């Protein structure tokens, strides 16, 4: 029966090619615009580390007091060096690391090649196990090397290609600015997006970092942060690098790993106690105010998804809605025009249900065709999205089997949803009236 309905549907769709094309195009364009913006939205809002996101937390401490939050500002999203070091010393979490972005000139040992700029992060040993960093050679450094300010470095696969032609470079030396570092590990291609651990400094969608080196070593060599440095009203701080370290300027990202809710609660209590202690010691002149957000909460808090992406997705969905209303109208017109035909079929014994199934089959054909057109348009849309959104973000969106499947499914469901009323009307046609008027 279905194949008969499909044949009838095809015949009917052919009879009125302009109306059919219009419906198919409306569905296709509507679905494609939603899918294109959804692809971008999904790319930027995706969980960069799903297996760990519930166990990773970023703390915040109210270091500047309530008056710093006039004009709708929030707690600073980094810690001062003083607080970060205190938290590292107390070592209350399962794992913890302070992080800050640094940049160097890599000077190749081969004198004929020119120096080039590299960017990476200064972090503690826990960084690698905490964030599940994959290695192809060697591994991260250990806590005692952190303490000893070891001049070691973990380099990326890409930098390893550039400096050592991809060979196992563990034990070899790398010259960064004025210092030599021994390679201790080479990471596999690792660049979680968004880069959750650097959202306080960047949009989170930049190229993979080139290297990682021990935090204490970076600070020891007076390495400047390449990220944000925020010194709310810290008037009268001492000059020089040490003055900056001792100041209330915030620039250190801080992450902790806590295995369960109880541990998170305990850590939150510890943060409270730490801030309260600072209050008692006369450093903070306001009640303790701290937060502890897990990775996904942190992404929300840092507004990882740009408002442009959200507004685009929203308006595209509105656009799809208009396309569907349009399709309902056109289908209604198309189906009701065949009231006579329906009357004849009903008079010959077709049940309402069968009429309904027949028209639904016709609608499904429109839906599938709309979906195919939608896939083509989505492809064009994703290809062209680089012209519209920032390239860092746009290149994350790509056509995948998932997206194609979703587009087809979305088109089919939307069309069948739209067809619901027109098919219902068609099935309610009174045979007697239709036969009489002819």
């Amino acid at each position, binding site marked *: 029966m279905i194949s008969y309905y499909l044949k009838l549907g095809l015949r009917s769709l052919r009879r009125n090619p302009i109306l059919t094309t219009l419906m198919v195009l409306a569905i296709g364009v509507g679905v494609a615009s939603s899918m294109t913006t959804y692809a971008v939205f999904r790319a930027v809002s995706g969980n960069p580390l799903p297996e760990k996101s519930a166990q990773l937390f970023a703390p915040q401490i109210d270091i500047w007091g309530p008056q710093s939050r006039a004009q709708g500002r929030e707690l600073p999203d980094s810690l001062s060096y003083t607080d970060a070091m205190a938290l590292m010393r107390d070592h209350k979490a399962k794992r913890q690391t302070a992080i800050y972005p640094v940049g160097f000139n890599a000077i190749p040992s081969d004198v004929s090649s020119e120096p080039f700029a590299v960017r990476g992060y200064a972090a503690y040993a826990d960084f690698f196990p905490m964030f599940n960093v994959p290695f192809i050679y060697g591994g991260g450094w250990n806590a005692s090397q952190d303490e000893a300010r070891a001049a070691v470095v973990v380099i990326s696969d890409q930098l390893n290609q550039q400096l050592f032609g991809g060979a196992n470079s563990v034990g070899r030396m790398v010259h960064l600015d004025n210092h030599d570092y021994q390679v201790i590990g080479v990471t596999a291609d690792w660049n979680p997006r968004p880069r959750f651990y650097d959202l306080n400094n960047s949009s989170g969608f930049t190229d993979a970092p080139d290297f990682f080196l021990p935090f204490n070593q970076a600070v020891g060599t007076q390495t400047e942060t390449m990220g944000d440095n925020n010194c*709310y009203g810290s008037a009268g701080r001492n000059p020089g690098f040490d003055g900056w370290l001792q100041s209330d300027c915030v620039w250190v990202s801080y992450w902790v790993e806590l295995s369960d809710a109880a541990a998170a609660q305990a850590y939150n209590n510890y943060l409270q106690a730490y801030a309260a202690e600072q209050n008692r010691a006369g450093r903070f002149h306001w009640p303790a105010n701290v937060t502890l957000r897990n990775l996904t909460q942190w992404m929300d808090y840092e507004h990882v998804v740009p408002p442009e992406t959200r507004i685009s997705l929203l308006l595209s969905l509105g656009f799809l809605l208009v396309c569907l209303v349009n399709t309902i109208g*056109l289908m209604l017109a198309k189906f009701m025009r065949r009231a006579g035909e329906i009357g004849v079929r009903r008079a010959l014994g077709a049940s309402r249900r069968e009429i309904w199934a027949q028209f639904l089959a016709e609608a499904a054909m429109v839906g599938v065709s709309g979906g195919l057109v939608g896939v083509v348009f989505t492809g064009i849309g994703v290809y062209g999205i680089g012209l519209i959104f920032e390239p860092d973000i746009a290149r994350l969106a790509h056509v995948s089997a998932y997206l194609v499947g979703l587009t087809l499914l979305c088109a089919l469901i939307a069309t069948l949803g739209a067809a619901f009323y027109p098919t219902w009307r068609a099935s309610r046609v009174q045979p007697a009236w239709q036969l009489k008027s002819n």
Partner: protein
Amino acid sequence: MQIHPIIVALRRHKAGTLLIALQIALTLAIVCNALFIIHQRLSHLSEPSGIDEANLFVVTNLWGEQYSTDEAAAKIQQDLAALRQLPGVDNVTPADSYPLRGGGWDNFITLKPEQVSMTTDASVYTGDEHFLRTLGVKLIAGRDFHADEVQNMGLRQNFVPPVTIISKALADKLYPNGDALGKPFYSMSDKPTTIIGIVERLHRADVSTWSAPYANESLIWPIRMAQPWGVFYIVHTKPGQLDEAMREAPKALYAENRMRMISSKDGVRSFAQIRHLAFESDRGMAVLMSIICVVLLAITGAGIVGLTSFWVGQRRRQIGVRRALGATHRDILHYFLTENFLISLAGVAIGVLLTFGLNLWLVERFEMQFLPLAYVLGGMVILLLLGQGAVFAPALRASRVPPVEATRPA
């Protein structure tokens, strides 16, 4: 033209009428808000920076060795001399930021040293005695820096120069009576800095929405940044020699000293490129919204054509009867035009509510501004015209139905 019979006839097409009206309403809501977004983004794109963008470019120079403050300062002087030698170059200034760069240094400004909450926020530029002339910023009051006022500042040094030149926007914010010249303010320090000059306009380095409340509020300190990482050279060229100078500048710098990095990809940028980058997402948004508007209007128009054509086909016999009873071509044409006008009017009325609803939601969620009434009125006119335009062809076909149709079976 009588409206009553049209309304009576529409009652027999409730669903179709409702669907067209709903489509018009939704289209109005989306198009109005999209047009408003387009306008806002485009006005952002053309924001004046106050500098002579057409003849300016920026060299991002990273040192290949780590220099102390004094070494870096000396290297900068050598580089400036090398750049000034170039035939197309008019003036050069070293800087650690420039307008439209994105991000950058900004300071809280207070009027009293003990004040805890800020009066405003200013984008901070550091510049020597060539800064204003190189950028082509117009000084409207006071004077430029003297060469002996300019101090070198190295990594993490922290001092507040005694004098500053500020933008008019900042001057007006601090001293609304227009008497800012010669007055002091405090900038995250307990030492005052005195306003010795006011420039007409100087865009902030930051371009994000965060900066919107402090638009064009900037200050320049007589400081020559001598950082270990590198420096920006802002170069002003003689008219028409920008491209030539942009090619020559890195060559001249490398010839002078090889231990540096000027990225071949983005190490030398004209201000046209800088502006393009700064407002990339604004332009993208405007393009996307325009596409959505155009396609949406096309689909709504096509939908009206389709549905009206169907109605015309359905009513051929009735039209024939009316024609036989004396209705002219014009009467029939007007009937369909009026019918569409009534439906569109209803749609637009619902649409106005949806438009403001959507706008309100965008205001709450995305810190957008309230929609000016002009956009809604404009959107209403566009949709009413679209409806009339879309219905015209089917209506014309209807008006050509011959009276003899009355005698034929439907």
